[in-house]
């Protein structure tokens, strides 16, 4: 499972979802879905987000291991 801090970094950069969406060439709804962990962006979009938010991709996105119980 992937968790992200897109909202944290977006607020830090003083950007609205609309502004961030425009900078990374996607829709505001996609940014909203990413922030709510409902949608995992492609590698390209993830790298673009990291670039626009002036941080490393590993700072924004984190892989969380989920234990499956049988």
């Amino acid at each position: 499972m992937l968790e992200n801090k897109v909202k944290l970094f977006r607020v830090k950069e003083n950007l609205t979802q609309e502004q961030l969406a425009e900078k990374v060439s996607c829709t505001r709804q996609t940014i909203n879905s990413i922030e709510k962990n409902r949608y995992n962006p492609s590698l390209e979009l993830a790298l673009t987000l990291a670039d626009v938010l002036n941080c490393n991709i590993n700072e924004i996105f984190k892989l969380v291991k989920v234990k499956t119980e049988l």
Partner: protein
Amino acid sequence: MNKQQKRAIYTMILFGLLLIYLVLNFTIVGVDNFINRTNLLITSGCILLTGIGFAYMLYATNKKNAIIDERDDQIQLQATNIGIILTTMFVFILMIGLFIGYEEEGQVPVSWMWFTAYTTSVFSFFSTSSIIVILYRRI
């Protein structure tokens, strides 16, 4: 709400209503009277109206500067895949039902062919657009 979502909702409503009409019409009128000339004219008229409505909807919702991003593409792809499976299941269940229903008679009334043809097409539009609407809420 983006262009794809709006189109999916309108398509779902249009083809959902047409599907309900076809099923109700076939149920009420019956197998024998379904291919009656008057009924076929009315039903064909409804299908034509739906087609015109669909075409107008596509024209009215066409925005040149609308952005379609990777999430929209993913939703469209998933919905298409699921829609194909659902339509295949629909046809399979319908055909098996007809086989079981008319096994002893040895032949199926021709009105079932007409019904199958149109409901399959309408169902595929309805199911795909419904799944798009659902996926936009979930993803």
